[in-house]
């Protein structure tokens, strides 16, 4: 069960990271001012990396067997 969730999580992380790369690319490529491009990119990347890092830590602490087992017992 944990392996399946790990795989799903990896797909989600890769997806959101891919979209974020597009966001950073657009900010840097299409901003009219170099200064604002860098400020925007730094703001986005710093908050994104913080949220992603904490997300990974929180995910690593989850025991899916316990969570899904509890959920199944509650439903039944």
């Amino acid at each position, binding site marked *: 069960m944990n392996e399946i969730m790990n795989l799903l999580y990896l797909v989600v992380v890769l997806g959101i990271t891919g*979209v974020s790369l*597009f*966001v950073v690319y657009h*900010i840097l490529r*299409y901003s009219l001012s170099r200064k604002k491009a860098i400020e925007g990119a730094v703001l986005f990347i710093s*908050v994104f990396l913080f949220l992603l890092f904490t*997300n990974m830590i929180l995910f690593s602490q*989850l025991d899916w067997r316990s*969570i899904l087992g509890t959920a199944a017992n509650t439903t039944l």
Partner: protein
Amino acid sequence: MKPTETKNITFPGKHDRETVIAVIHRHWFDMFSHLLTGILMGMVLLGSLAVLPALYPDIAAGQHAAFFFFMENTFLLFLWVYLFLIWIDVYFDVWIITDERIVNIEQKGLFVRHISELRFSQVQDVTSEVEGIIPSILDYGEVFVQTAGEQTRFIFRNVPNPIGIKDLVMRLASDAREDDIEEAVKLLHETKRPGMFS
């Protein structure tokens, strides 16, 4: 019109000697209204961090707590990216007025970008429009530029100080026409033959 920092502005197709006079983005309230859904979702998420554990104490215990915070964090992560996607769509719509032309760059999503330009000599008429209570109070609206080109109407959407922009475009169009007339007269005199203009 509020002076904008135009010194270091560059855009695709800018000529070397072209001077940027104004860079116009959509009005801040228009951007805010696009971002409002995301902002409200963020407030609900942050509020739920305090409210849900109080209403359902089981959420704050053991694996449930870890799962709860994981889901909150995941939603926040997606929301952050979503807000920036909206921001890119709205903020990167820009109208650049130079001493030669108006350039309109419209960003539609991540993968579609339209760039159009209008030379001042093609400007026939300029109209500004402010409709509604909030646009009237905050002074934003649309500017319509009637053209002689393929694209018959050039539109500035939800821009601040539309009357100021209209006046600026009219003045620049008038100057361009005077320059064109002067150039035409000069050319005519250079090619003058005996008997012409006697």
